[in-house]
C-alpha cells in the first residue's frame, strides 16, 4: 500500500466517531441486574490467604523431613475419637494440648538443625493463625476467614502429629 492510500485510509478511520450513545433501554437493563455490592477480597483476607498458604507449605516441608510409616497408638486413639471440624470444640482442645505436650517432648530429642526447621515451620503457622485472628476481629462475619482460621488450627495439629509420628517408637535420630 503506498503512502497516499495509507493516508486516505487513515483519514477515513480517524473520522469515525469513537463514541456512540447506546439506546436508552440499555441502562435500565443494567440497573435491574445490579444486585448486592461489588465483590471484594478484603486486604486482611488476602493477607490471611497468603499466610495460610505459607502455613501449608511449612507443614508440608515438615512432613517431607519427618515422614515415617509408624503411627503411635495414642495418636490413633485421639484422631479416632476427636472431631476436628470445630477447633473450639473441647475435645479438639484437649487432643491438641495432649499432642502439643508430646510434640514438645519429642522435639527436644531431635538434632538441633532439624529442630530449628520444625520450629521455623511452626512459627509460620502460628503467625498465620495470629494474622487471621486479627482479620476475624475486623470482619467477624466472614465465612472465608472462619475457614482459614480453622485451617491454621489443623495445620498446627498436623505438624505436631507428623513430628510425633516420625519420632515414634524407636526415637531414631533424623
Amino acid at each position, binding site marked *: 500500500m503506498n503512502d497516499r492510500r495509507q493516508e486516505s*485510509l487513515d483519514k477515513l478511520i480517524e*473520522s*469515525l466517531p*469513537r463514541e456512540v450513545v447506546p439506546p436508552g433501554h440499555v441502562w435500565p*437493563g*443494567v440497573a435491574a441486574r445490579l444486585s448486592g455490592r461489588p465483590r471484594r477480597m478484603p486486604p486482611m483476607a488476602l493477607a490471611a490467604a497468603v499466610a495460610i498458604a505459607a502455613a501449608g507449605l511449612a507443614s508440608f516441608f515438615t512432613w517431607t523431613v519427618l515422614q515415617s510409616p509408624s503411627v503411635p497408638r495414642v495418636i490413633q486413639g485421639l484422631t479416632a475419637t476427636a472431631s476436628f471440624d470445630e477447633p473450639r470444640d473441647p475435645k479438639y482442645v484437649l487432643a491438641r494440648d495432649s499432642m502439643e505436650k508430646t510434640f514438645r517432648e519429642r522435639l527436644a530429642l531431635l538434632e538441633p538443625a532439624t529442630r530449628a526447621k520444625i520450629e521455623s515451620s511452626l512459627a509460620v503457622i502460628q503467625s498465620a493463625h495470629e494474622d487471621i485472628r486479627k482479620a476475624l476481629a475486623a470482619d467477624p462475619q466472614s465465612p472465608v476467614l472462619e475457614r482459614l482460621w480453622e485451617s491454621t488450627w489443623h495445620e498446627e495439629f498436623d505438624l505436631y502429629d507428623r513430628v510425633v509420628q516420625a519420632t515414634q517408637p524407636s526415637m531414631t535420630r533424623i
Partner: protein
Amino acid sequence: MDLSSEPSDTIAAAAAGDRAAFERLYRQFSPRIYGLCLRLTGQREAAEDCTQESFVAAWRALGRFERRSRFSTWLHKIAVNCVLSRRKGLRAAYEVAEPWAGLPERADPAGAAPPLDIERAIAALPDGARHVLVLVGIYGFSHAEAAGALGVAEGTSKAQLHRARQLLTSTLGLEES
C-alpha cells in the same frame, strides 16, 4: 487508548456499592463501550447485549479493580471479553442481520466524511481482521494489548491489521484515488 481523566472518587464510591455513582460511570463510559461493541460485533442488538453484560460484569468485579490500571482500559477489556465470549452465537445471527445495522448514519456527523461506507466496509471484514482493526486502529490498543485481549500472538495482530487495511483499501476503492 483514550487517557482522559478518570473520576477516581466516583469509581471508589461505585466500588463501595453506590449505584448512583455507578450510573454516572455508565453515563460517562457507555458511549465508548457501546461504540466498541458495535464495531466488534457489527450488530446493534448484540452490541446492546454486550454493553449491558460488560457493565454488569464491571459492577460485580469493581471491588477487585486495581487502581494501578486505568478504569477505562479495564472496562474495555471486559467489553472485549464479553464480545468474544458471544462470538459463536453471533455467527448465526450475522447471516440474518445487516452487519452494519445500528452504526452511525455518518462516520463524522459534523463533517464531510463518507456516510456509512467505511463503517460498512469495516463490518464486512473477516472477524480476525475486524477485531484487530477496531481495537488497534480505532480504539488505540497496542498490538500487545490487542493480542492479549484476543488470545492471539502479537505478530498475528500485526498481520491481521495489515490484512484489514488492505481489504479496506480495496473495498473503498482507495487504490484508484
